[in-house]
Protein backbone atom coordinates (compact mmCIF):
# COMPACT_ATOMS: atom_id res chain seq x y z
CA UNK A 1 0.00 0.00 0.00
CA UNK A 2 1.24 3.47 -0.88
CA UNK A 3 0.32 6.00 1.84
CA UNK A 4 1.90 9.06 0.28
CA UNK A 5 3.05 10.15 -3.16
CA UNK A 6 5.28 13.21 -3.45
CA UNK A 7 5.23 14.99 -6.80
CA UNK A 8 5.55 18.57 -8.01
CA UNK A 9 3.04 18.42 -10.83
CA UNK A 10 0.12 16.27 -11.84
CA UNK A 11 -0.60 16.92 -15.53
CA UNK A 12 -2.79 15.22 -18.09
CA UNK A 13 -0.96 12.51 -19.96
CA UNK A 14 -2.92 12.49 -23.19
CA UNK A 15 -3.29 15.37 -25.65
CA UNK A 16 -0.99 18.33 -25.13
CA UNK A 17 -0.23 17.49 -21.48
CA UNK A 18 -0.33 21.07 -20.24
CA UNK A 19 -3.13 21.15 -17.65
CA UNK A 20 -3.19 19.94 -14.10
CA UNK A 21 -2.15 20.71 -10.54
CA UNK A 22 1.18 22.33 -9.80
CA UNK A 23 2.58 21.71 -6.31
CA UNK A 24 6.07 22.97 -6.99
CA UNK A 25 5.85 26.14 -4.85
CA UNK A 26 5.96 26.09 -1.05
CA UNK A 27 2.60 26.41 0.73
CA UNK A 28 0.48 26.91 -2.38
CA UNK A 29 -1.48 24.87 -4.89
CA UNK A 30 -1.62 26.11 -8.46
CA UNK A 31 -4.23 25.05 -10.97
CA UNK A 32 -2.75 25.17 -14.45
CA UNK A 33 -4.69 25.26 -17.70
CA UNK A 34 -3.01 25.22 -21.10
CA UNK A 35 0.42 25.65 -19.62
CA UNK A 36 -0.20 28.60 -17.31
CA UNK A 37 -1.54 29.01 -13.79
CA UNK A 38 -5.17 30.20 -13.76
CA UNK A 39 -5.95 29.86 -10.05
CA UNK A 40 -3.77 29.67 -6.95
CA UNK A 41 -4.68 28.60 -3.44
CA UNK A 42 -2.36 30.36 -1.03
CA UNK A 43 -1.04 29.40 2.39
CA UNK A 44 -4.16 30.83 4.07
CA UNK A 45 -6.42 28.65 1.94
CA UNK A 46 -7.74 31.56 -0.15
CA UNK A 47 -8.26 31.07 -3.87
CA UNK A 48 -6.99 33.71 -6.33
CA UNK A 49 -7.48 34.04 -10.08
CA UNK A 50 -4.51 34.98 -12.23
CA UNK A 51 -6.61 37.69 -13.92
CA UNK A 52 -9.29 39.94 -12.41
CA UNK A 53 -11.53 39.22 -15.42
CA UNK A 54 -11.82 35.61 -14.32
CA UNK A 55 -14.64 34.47 -12.10
CA UNK A 56 -17.16 31.76 -11.37
CA UNK A 57 -20.11 31.15 -13.69
CA UNK A 58 -23.47 30.33 -12.13
CA UNK A 59 -26.52 28.82 -13.78
CA UNK A 60 -24.83 28.05 -17.10
CA UNK A 61 -22.75 25.19 -18.47
CA UNK A 62 -20.54 27.34 -20.67
CA UNK A 63 -18.66 30.58 -20.10
CA UNK A 64 -21.15 33.47 -20.31
CA UNK A 65 -20.14 36.97 -19.24
CA UNK A 66 -23.54 37.86 -17.82
CA UNK A 67 -23.44 34.79 -15.56
CA UNK A 68 -19.87 35.29 -14.39
CA UNK A 69 -19.24 36.66 -10.91
CA UNK A 70 -15.79 38.20 -11.07
CA UNK A 71 -15.61 40.89 -8.42
CA UNK A 72 -16.10 41.43 -4.71
CA UNK A 73 -14.79 44.39 -2.76
CA UNK A 74 -15.56 46.28 0.42
CA UNK A 75 -14.23 49.58 1.64
CA UNK A 76 -15.02 53.15 2.59
CA UNK A 77 -15.86 56.41 0.82
CA UNK A 78 -16.37 60.01 1.86
CA UNK A 79 -19.80 61.57 1.24
CA UNK A 80 -20.08 65.31 0.71
CA UNK A 81 -22.98 67.73 0.36
CA UNK A 82 -22.60 69.65 -2.88
CA UNK A 83 -24.94 72.21 -4.42
CA UNK A 84 -25.35 72.26 -8.18
CA UNK A 85 -25.07 76.05 -8.38
CA UNK A 86 -22.02 76.35 -6.16
CA UNK A 87 -21.24 77.42 -2.62
CA UNK A 88 -19.58 75.63 0.24
CA UNK A 89 -20.87 73.25 2.89
CA UNK A 90 -18.68 72.45 5.85
CA UNK A 91 -19.18 68.99 7.29
CA UNK A 92 -19.18 67.48 10.74
CA UNK A 93 -18.53 63.80 11.33
CA UNK A 94 -19.35 61.75 8.25
CA UNK A 95 -18.44 58.50 6.60
CA UNK A 96 -19.50 55.89 4.12
CA UNK A 97 -18.92 52.22 3.45
CA UNK A 98 -19.54 50.08 0.41
CA UNK A 99 -19.79 46.49 -0.69
CA UNK A 100 -19.48 45.68 -4.39
CA UNK A 101 -20.57 42.28 -5.66
CA UNK A 102 -20.15 41.98 -9.39
CA UNK A 103 -21.56 45.23 -10.78
CA UNK A 104 -23.95 45.75 -7.88
CA UNK A 105 -22.89 48.38 -5.34
CA UNK A 106 -24.41 48.82 -1.91
CA UNK A 107 -23.46 52.00 -0.06
CA UNK A 108 -24.26 53.20 3.42
CA UNK A 109 -23.40 56.62 4.78
CA UNK A 110 -23.96 59.25 7.42
CA UNK A 111 -23.33 62.94 7.08
CA UNK A 112 -24.11 66.26 8.74
CA UNK A 113 -23.26 69.87 8.06
CA UNK A 114 -21.80 72.45 10.41
CA UNK A 115 -22.11 75.54 8.26
CA UNK A 116 -22.77 76.89 4.77
CA UNK A 117 -21.58 79.68 2.51
CA UNK A 118 -23.16 81.15 -0.64
CA UNK A 119 -25.21 78.12 -1.66
CA UNK A 120 -27.31 77.97 -4.82
CA UNK A 121 -29.04 75.30 -6.88
CA UNK A 122 -30.14 71.88 -5.77
CA UNK A 123 -28.56 69.52 -3.27
CA UNK A 124 -26.57 66.44 -4.25
CA UNK A 125 -24.47 63.99 -2.31
CA UNK A 126 -21.16 63.46 -4.07
CA UNK A 127 -18.30 61.04 -3.51
CA UNK A 128 -19.90 57.70 -4.36
CA UNK A 129 -17.24 54.98 -4.63
CA UNK A 130 -18.26 53.96 -8.17
CA UNK A 131 -20.15 55.82 -10.92
CA UNK A 132 -23.72 54.81 -11.63
CA UNK A 133 -24.10 52.85 -14.86
CA UNK A 134 -25.36 54.77 -17.87
CA UNK A 135 -28.37 52.69 -18.78
CA UNK A 136 -32.11 52.72 -18.81
CA UNK A 137 -33.31 51.77 -15.36
CA UNK A 138 -30.05 52.75 -13.70
CA UNK A 139 -31.81 55.48 -11.71
CA UNK A 140 -32.34 53.69 -8.44
CA UNK A 141 -33.68 54.75 -5.09
CA UNK A 142 -32.12 54.71 -1.68
CA UNK A 143 -33.47 54.22 1.79
CA UNK A 144 -33.29 56.93 4.44
CA UNK A 145 -32.96 55.34 7.84
CA UNK A 146 -32.70 58.47 9.93
CA UNK A 147 -32.66 62.22 9.46
CA UNK A 148 -33.10 65.33 11.57
CA UNK A 149 -32.69 69.08 11.71
CA UNK A 150 -33.17 70.07 8.10
CA UNK A 151 -34.31 73.53 7.07
CA UNK A 152 -37.92 72.62 6.30
CA UNK A 153 -40.44 69.87 6.64
CA UNK A 154 -40.15 67.64 3.56
CA UNK A 155 -42.83 64.98 3.08
CA UNK A 156 -41.56 61.81 1.42
CA UNK A 157 -37.95 62.90 1.63
CA UNK A 158 -36.01 60.54 -0.64
CA UNK A 159 -32.72 59.93 -2.39
CA UNK A 160 -31.96 58.47 -5.80
CA UNK A 161 -28.99 57.86 -8.06
CA UNK A 162 -28.50 59.46 -11.47
CA UNK A 163 -27.16 57.39 -14.37
CA UNK A 164 -23.62 58.24 -15.45
CA UNK A 165 -22.71 60.21 -12.36
CA UNK A 166 -21.20 59.52 -8.98
CA UNK A 167 -23.78 61.37 -6.95
CA UNK A 168 -27.08 60.92 -5.15
CA UNK A 169 -29.92 63.41 -5.55
CA UNK A 170 -32.44 64.47 -2.94
CA UNK A 171 -36.10 65.17 -3.50
CA UNK A 172 -39.38 65.37 -1.66
CA UNK A 173 -43.03 65.61 -2.49
CA UNK A 174 -46.42 65.62 -0.92
CA UNK A 175 -48.56 62.71 -2.04
CA UNK A 176 -50.77 65.02 -4.08
CA UNK A 177 -47.98 67.03 -5.67
CA UNK A 178 -45.10 66.55 -8.08
CA UNK A 179 -41.59 66.01 -6.75
CA UNK A 180 -39.21 68.84 -6.04
CA UNK A 181 -35.45 68.82 -5.70
CA UNK A 182 -34.12 69.74 -2.27
CA UNK A 183 -32.63 73.22 -2.51
CA UNK A 184 -31.13 75.92 -0.35
CA UNK A 185 -34.38 76.80 1.40
CA UNK A 186 -34.70 73.23 2.68
CA UNK A 187 -31.08 73.09 3.81
CA UNK A 188 -30.44 74.34 7.36
CA UNK A 189 -27.51 76.67 7.92
CA UNK A 190 -26.65 75.94 11.55
CA UNK A 191 -24.18 73.68 13.27
CA UNK A 192 -24.96 69.94 13.47
CA UNK A 193 -27.82 70.13 10.99
CA UNK A 194 -29.00 68.27 7.88
CA UNK A 195 -28.20 64.95 9.52
CA UNK A 196 -28.94 61.87 7.48
CA UNK A 197 -28.11 58.17 7.72
CA UNK A 198 -29.07 56.24 4.62
CA UNK A 199 -28.20 53.51 2.16
CA UNK A 200 -28.57 52.91 -1.56
CA UNK A 201 -28.05 50.13 -4.04
CA UNK A 202 -27.12 50.73 -7.67
CA UNK A 203 -25.45 49.23 -10.71
CA UNK A 204 -22.05 50.44 -11.88
CA UNK A 205 -20.20 50.02 -15.18
Amino acid sequence: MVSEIRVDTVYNESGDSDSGINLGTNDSIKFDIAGSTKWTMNSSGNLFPSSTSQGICFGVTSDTASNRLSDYEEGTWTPAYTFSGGGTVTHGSRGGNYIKVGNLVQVGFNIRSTGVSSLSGSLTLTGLPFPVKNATGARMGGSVGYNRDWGADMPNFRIYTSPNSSQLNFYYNAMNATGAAVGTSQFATGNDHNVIEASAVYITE
Partner: protein
Amino acid sequence: MAITKEIIEDKIEVVGSFKHINVRTATVVKEDGKEVSRSFHRHVVSPDNDASSESDEVKKLVGLHHTDELKKEYSDFKKAQADAGP
Protein backbone atom coordinates in the same frame (compact mmCIF):
# COMPACT_ATOMS: atom_id res chain seq x y z
CA MET B 1 9.13 43.55 14.87
CA ALA B 2 8.58 46.50 12.55
CA ILE B 3 5.08 47.53 11.64
CA THR B 4 4.71 49.92 8.74
CA LYS B 5 1.73 51.54 7.03
CA GLU B 6 1.66 52.84 3.50
CA ILE B 7 -1.13 54.47 1.54
CA ILE B 8 -1.10 53.84 -2.19
CA GLU B 9 -3.44 54.19 -5.15
CA ASP B 10 -3.43 50.55 -6.14
CA LYS B 11 -6.14 50.59 -8.79
CA ILE B 12 -7.11 53.33 -11.23
CA GLU B 13 -9.67 52.65 -13.96
CA VAL B 14 -11.33 54.80 -16.62
CA VAL B 15 -14.96 53.74 -17.16
CA GLY B 16 -18.03 54.76 -19.11
CA SER B 17 -18.73 57.12 -21.96
CA PHE B 18 -17.88 60.14 -19.80
CA LYS B 19 -14.55 58.63 -18.73
CA HIS B 20 -15.16 58.56 -15.01
CA ILE B 21 -11.87 57.77 -13.27
CA ASN B 22 -12.28 55.24 -10.47
CA VAL B 23 -9.53 55.61 -7.88
CA ARG B 24 -8.96 53.00 -5.20
CA THR B 25 -6.69 54.01 -2.34
CA ALA B 26 -5.29 51.14 -0.30
CA THR B 27 -3.94 51.36 3.22
CA VAL B 28 -1.44 48.56 3.54
CA VAL B 29 -0.10 47.47 6.93
CA LYS B 30 3.02 45.33 6.98
CA GLU B 31 4.78 43.48 9.74
CA ASP B 32 8.46 42.94 9.05
CA GLY B 33 7.77 43.57 5.40
CA LYS B 34 4.96 41.03 5.14
CA GLU B 35 1.49 42.40 4.41
CA VAL B 36 -0.95 41.73 7.25
CA SER B 37 -3.88 43.91 6.19
CA ARG B 38 -5.14 45.97 3.27
CA SER B 39 -8.21 48.23 3.40
CA PHE B 40 -9.72 50.32 0.61
CA HIS B 41 -11.13 53.82 0.21
CA ARG B 42 -12.65 54.85 -3.12
CA HIS B 43 -13.59 57.98 -4.97
CA VAL B 44 -14.51 58.86 -8.54
CA VAL B 45 -13.13 61.75 -10.56
CA SER B 46 -15.78 62.83 -13.07
CA PRO B 47 -15.33 65.40 -15.84
CA ASP B 48 -16.87 68.15 -13.67
CA ASN B 49 -14.67 67.47 -10.64
CA ASP B 50 -11.74 69.57 -9.45
CA ALA B 51 -8.69 67.34 -9.89
CA SER B 52 -6.15 69.74 -8.40
CA SER B 53 -5.66 67.63 -5.28
CA GLU B 54 -5.37 64.33 -7.15
CA SER B 55 -2.14 62.39 -7.57
CA ASP B 56 0.07 63.03 -10.59
CA GLU B 57 -1.05 59.73 -12.12
CA VAL B 58 -4.72 60.68 -11.86
CA LYS B 59 -4.00 64.19 -13.13
CA LYS B 60 -2.39 62.65 -16.22
CA LEU B 61 -5.53 60.64 -16.90
CA VAL B 62 -7.70 63.70 -16.31
CA GLY B 63 -5.62 65.64 -18.82
CA LEU B 64 -5.85 62.81 -21.31
CA HIS B 65 -9.55 62.02 -21.04
CA HIS B 66 -11.38 65.01 -19.58
CA THR B 67 -11.07 67.26 -22.57
CA ASP B 68 -12.96 70.52 -22.85
CA GLU B 69 -15.28 68.85 -25.34
CA LEU B 70 -16.05 66.00 -22.94
CA LYS B 71 -16.57 68.43 -20.05
CA LYS B 72 -19.07 70.34 -22.17
CA GLU B 73 -20.89 67.12 -23.10
CA TYR B 74 -21.02 66.07 -19.46
CA SER B 75 -22.22 69.48 -18.34
CA ASP B 76 -25.01 69.40 -20.94
CA PHE B 77 -25.89 65.86 -19.89
CA LYS B 78 -26.16 66.80 -16.22
CA LYS B 79 -28.14 69.91 -17.00
CA ALA B 80 -30.61 67.82 -19.00
CA GLN B 81 -30.87 65.41 -16.06
CA ALA B 82 -31.49 68.28 -13.65
CA ASP B 83 -34.04 69.89 -15.98
CA ALA B 84 -35.91 66.59 -16.18
CA GLY B 85 -36.34 66.81 -12.41
CA PRO B 86 -37.24 64.14 -9.90
